[in-house]
Structure formats: structure tokens, C-alpha cells
């Protein structure tokens, strides 16, 4: 589905990613862990197409297409979804209006017919139950006045509506209490199919109790320094990242 090769990226002249390799296939869940400043969120931003980052080397193929050549919105239309670490507030724009615009633009790109208002609303009702999102929130302005947990659930709700091929969850667990975490994780699990894939970026192992990854990668100093199965996450939880730092330094 996505193949990242030897990715080097920098911001303001400072190199953050230093030769990252990663391949994700359909039906897989990959977790990316690592200490603060390792480059986890940079990776998410680059995949989604934030312009501040400069790609100095390497390539990203998404469903056979050169991802780096695509604009942010075309990446989204191709089926790449980023659940933001800090979802953005847009005052005055209702969640519904926002999603409908988004969904219809994606459909138009794919040459599909737009949804009727009735079908759209039906879909909203269906999908909002996945993350137990109060339907009242759908009429409120995008993320404005939402609690931290509501914002994260709203991200997963949007993911359910847009049905992406590849979802990247950027620290979706940060700031969530255990109940909210379970709701969000269950939502993600329900959306999982053999055709789509998911990259879960997290700092904590606990999320992986709920979203069970096929692979766990440790990102350190701009590179993936260790790859394993879900047991690796447990080791990290126990030993911390220092252990990785030491072995990486050797």
C-alpha cells in the first residue's frame, strides 16, 4: 500500500528524518513508537503533505503513485487520512457542512456521484455511533468547544465517514482517559478491513492493548532502529527507550 524508502527530511535546515524505511501492506496495522523528538509526528506531517518540511532524499509510493508529487488534498482524495494530534478548530463551519464538502469533493475526484442530503445524514447517524459521538456535536462548529476526548473521537468519526485506504493516527491516544481511549480504539478496530491499513503513532504502549498491531517499529533519531511484533511494545514499556538508545548508539 505504502512504501517509504530512505526518506530524509528537514525543517529550517535541521534534518529530522535521516533515512527512514517503511512498508505497509493492505490489512496491516503498524505501530510507530519512539521517544520525544524522534521524528514521529514529522513523519505523519510529511505523509499528509505539510509544506514546511523539505524532502532532501528518498521516495514514497502510495498505491503505486509518487505521493510526494501529489497535493495535500489529492493525497486525501487518493485515500490517505491523517488523524491530527491537535485537531484544528474552524469557527462558524459546522462539522456536517465540513464533512459533506469533504466527502463530495473526494467523490467528485473519484468520478462518483455526490451523496444526497438524506443519504448523507443517514451515514452521519450510522457512523457517529462507531465512536459514540453525540449527534449534537455534528451541528457544532468543527472542533470548537470540543473537549480533548471529543476532538479525538471526532477525528475517528471523520475517518469512518471518509473510509480511507490508509489511516495515520498521530498520537490519537495522548490526553485521553481510559474510557475515551477504549472508545477511540474500538472505533478504529471496527473500521479495519483486509483492504485498508493503519499506521498508529504513539508514545505509550497502552493504546496497543486495544489496537493490536501486526508490527511495532521503534523510531529513533530519524530512523527506524528496531522492528518487531507487539511484544516489542511490552519490552519498551518495561525497559523504556534508553535501552534502544544504547543499542542504537553501539
Amino acid at each position, binding site marked *: 500500500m505504502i512504501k517509504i524508502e530512505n526518506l530524509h527530511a528537514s525543517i529550517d535546515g535541521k534534518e529530522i528524518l535521516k533515512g527512514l524505511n517503511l512498508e505497509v501492506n493492505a490489512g496491516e496495522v503498524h505501530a510507530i513508537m519512539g521517544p520525544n523528538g524522534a521524528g514521529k509526528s514529522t513523519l505523519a506531517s510529511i505523509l499528509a503533505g505539510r509544506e514546511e518540511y523539505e524532502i532532501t532524499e528518498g521516495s514514497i509510493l502510495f498505491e503505486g503513485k509518487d505521493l510526494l508529487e501529489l497535493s495535500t488534498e489529492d493525497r486525501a482524495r487518493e485515500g490517505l487520512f491523517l488523524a491530527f494530534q491537535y485537531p484544528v478548530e474552524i*469557527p*462558524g463551519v459546522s462539522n456536517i457542512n465540513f464533512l459533506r464538502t469533504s466527502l463530495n469533493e473526494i467523490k467528485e475526484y473519484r468520478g462518483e456521484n455526490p451523496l444526497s442530503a438524506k443519504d448523507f445524514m443517514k451515514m452521519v447517524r450510522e457512523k457517529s455511533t462507531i465512536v459514540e459521538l453525540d449527534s449534537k456535536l455534528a451541528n457544532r462548529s468543527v472542533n470548537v468547544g470540543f473537549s480533548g476526548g471529543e476532538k479525538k473521537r471526532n477525528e475517528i468519526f471523520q475517518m469512518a465517514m471518509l473510509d480511507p485506504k490508509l489511516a495515520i493516527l498521530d498520537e490519537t491516544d495522548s490526553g485521553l482517559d481510559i474510557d475515551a481511549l477504549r472508545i477511540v480504539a474500538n472505533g478504529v478496530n471496527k473500521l479495519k478491513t483486509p483492504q485498508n491499513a493503519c499506521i498508529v503513532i504513539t508514545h505509550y504502549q497502552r493504546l496497543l492493548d486495544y489496537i493490536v498491531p501486526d508490527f511495532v517499529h521503534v523510531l529513533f533519531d530519524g530512523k527506524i532502529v528496531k522492528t518487531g511484533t507487539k511484544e516489542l511494545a511490552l519490552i519498551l514499556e518495561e525497559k523504556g527507550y534508553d535501552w534502544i538508545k544504547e543499542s542504537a548508539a553501539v
Partner: protein
Amino acid sequence: MANYTENELAKDLENQEYKFGFVTDIETDKAPVGLSEDIIRLISSKKNEPEWMLSFRLNAFEVWKKMTEPEWAHVHYKKPDFQEITYYAAPKQTKKYESWDDVDPEMKETMTKLGISLEEQQRLSGVAVDFVMDSVSVATSFKEKLKELGIIFCSFSDAVQEYPELVKKYMGTVIPTTDNFYASLNSAVFTDGSFCYIPKGIRCPMELSTYFRINAGGTGQFERTLVIADEGSYVSYLEGCTAPQRDENQLHAAVVELIALENAEIKYSTVQNWYPGNKQGKGGVFNFVTKRGICERRAKISWTQVETGSAVTWKYPSCILKGDYSVGEFYSVAVTNNYQQADTGTKMIHLGKHTKSTIISKGISAGKSQNSYRGLVQIHKNAQQSRNFSQCDSLLMSDQCGAHTFPYIECKNPSAKIEHEATTSKIGEDQLFYCMQRGISEEKAISLIVNGYCKEVLNQLPMEFAVEAQKLLAISLEGSVG
């Protein structure tokens, strides 16, 4: 309202140039160019006016001659030569239309192009339209229906003839002929406008609407509107403007006076898209308008405006809160693009006790335009327990434009509470990125964000107007991302 922004918007966005730039070819009856006492006498006699009306005009003219054009606004333009303007141009017609069918087909077509065909309006929306074309009211609908309720809604000229007592009593009481340069000029030379009277305790069942439009080349538009809401009555009044494309600048100096008597409420909404000039800043309308309302005890006046047009705008719809517990509101969206200049805002004059005012102003500047908010909040000595809240936000869409905020806050009563907040910022990069990550194009994302930013104001407009306003916003800002 939320259902707009979809495909319709995309279609509208294709219309790059000014949508309403066409000239109707109707023989017009024009007065000679220039301004003098004779011209004023001519206008007055053309309109068969009574003596008191003529002397009102002549007094105003005397005052005006001694005045100089104001220069304090943050706008720069070549001052019009007031001797180069035609002060009277009426579509040539010998008699009033008996019915809608008698109206000149070409004029009907004009209205259709404007998207406000009377038939349509009459049939579908229940809006009564008093259509002003080059200063003379040519068709008035729903008059009869309103008449049953005792509501008077007619052209200003008709009111002078038919309701002279009301006109005499209220005309010039809110905006005296000495008020300012343009208001004095208007008082001297106004050709027509709208008049509205809502009797005691009557709630006007439909939205009253007037469309103004400048037509013949080189004619100034000087209309005058007087709305009187008698005790305990309510009216919602809509004013829309479009002007055809012309190269030389055209002057538009209107006067609008609102009178809300005890417990009355007037809601006055304007969507203004006078021709803004072309992309090089050539041509366009000068919109120098004086609008003011007075509130008696427990009365309320609410101004809502969406301004996307005109080359130069100078406009401050204001409220004099004379009666205790009266309320004034001002909701404004002002968009400027290319070389447009706008200096607009409001004045809230708190005279009565427990008076309350709210100001929400949203400025959007794009291209090389200059957009200024100028507002006065004045709390007089006896205005105990008065409140004002002002929020003035500016959104910048290009690095060539300007956004300015000039609030004047004057307080002479310690129990008053005044809060003013203003922000100026660029359209949010994070917001744009978020939208785009959800597959929304940049242009659409901007439209979405801008409409959201203006929502508090757009929400104040009646439904049909709100949709039109959203379209106008999108059209005005098209291609402005820089």
C-alpha cells in the same frame, strides 16, 4: 444556509467578472448636467412637489454650499466634480403602470438578470419589492395587501404626495440637512427612494425589500429612505444594490433614516454589491451613505450589512439610543478585493439609561485593497448602566492589502460597561491544511473558512439574503489567495 457552499458555489465561482455589468437601453429623461438652485427647482417641479419639500431642498443646498468634502476617512480617491453629475434621470414614461404586465419588457429583463424578477418574488417568496431604477420607483407590489394592515410601503415621491404629514413630521429628524456633506447633498437633490410606515402594534408579516441600481451613465444616485415603526410594531427591511459596469466613477449618496418609537423594532439588512471597479482599480461606484436610526424607550434597531461592492465605501449605519432600555445592533461583513477601499463601521450613541449595543464587524481584505473599521461608542452622562460590546475582526488574504481598526470609545458614565476587542490575522494555515487533508480544495477551503468566520453576521440575515450574501462573498474573493 449550510447547504449552500456546495456545487452551486463552484458554478458561481466560474463567473470571474462582475456579474451584473450590463446597461439597460431605456430612453431616459435626463436633467442638464450640473447642480444649481435651478436644477433643484427642476427636480422638485418634475416631481410635482409641494412648496415645503422644495424649501427643504433649497435649505439643504444652502448648507451644502458652505461645506467641504470630508477627508478624515482612510480612503483615497479623486473627488467627484459635483458640476459634472446629472442629478435627475427618470425612465421616460407618461403614466404609471396599471399592472405588472404593463411594465417595459426591457426593464423586466433587467430585473431578471439581477435575479430578482418581480413575478418570481411575488409568487415564491412573499417579499414585497419596491424597485428603484435610476431614482424613480417603477413598480410596487403587495401594496394592497400591506394596506389592509395599515402598512404604508411606497416610493418616497408617492409618500410626499399622499402622506405629507408623516413625511414632514419625520424627514430630517434623525439626519438633519446639516449633518454632513453627502447627507446635505442628498437632501438637496434626492430624486426618489422608499418610504415605510408600520402602524402601532402591527407586526409586518413579510420582509420589505428594495433593490437599488444605478443605470444611466454619469448619473448620481441620491435616494432617500424613511422607515417609521410606530409604537410596538416590527418590520424587517431588506435593501439590495447592484450597479451596471461603467468606466467613470459613479456617485451614490443615499440617506436612510429609521425611527423606532416606543417598543418598536426595525431590522434593516443590506447586501451591497455596487460595481467595485475592474481588476486594475478603474471605475466603480463611490458609495457615500448616511444611515442612522433613533430608538425611543425599549425600542430596538438592528443593522446588518454585507458589503462586497463599490470602489470606495464610506458608510456608518448608526443608532441613537435615546430611550431608556433601547437596543442597537450592528452586524457587518465588509469584503474588499483588488483596489477597493472601504471605511465603514457604526456609531452607537447611548443617551438613555440601561441602553445596550452590540457591534460585530468582520473585515476581509484581499488583493491590493484597504479595509477599515471605524466605530464610535459614546456613553453620555445620563446613560446609567449602559452596555456595549464590540468585536472587530480582520482577516488578511494577501500581503498587498491593508486592514485597519479605528475605534473611538467615549465614556462619561461610570456605571457603563464597554468592551472592545479587535484582532487582525491571516487566514489560518492550520485550518487550510486541515481542510485540505480532508480532500477539500484550497479555494473551497477558503470559502468555507471565510463563511464560517462571517457566520455571526450572516446568521442575522433573512434566509434568501443569506444565501445571496454567501455567493457574493465567494465571488468577491475568488482568486484572492496569495
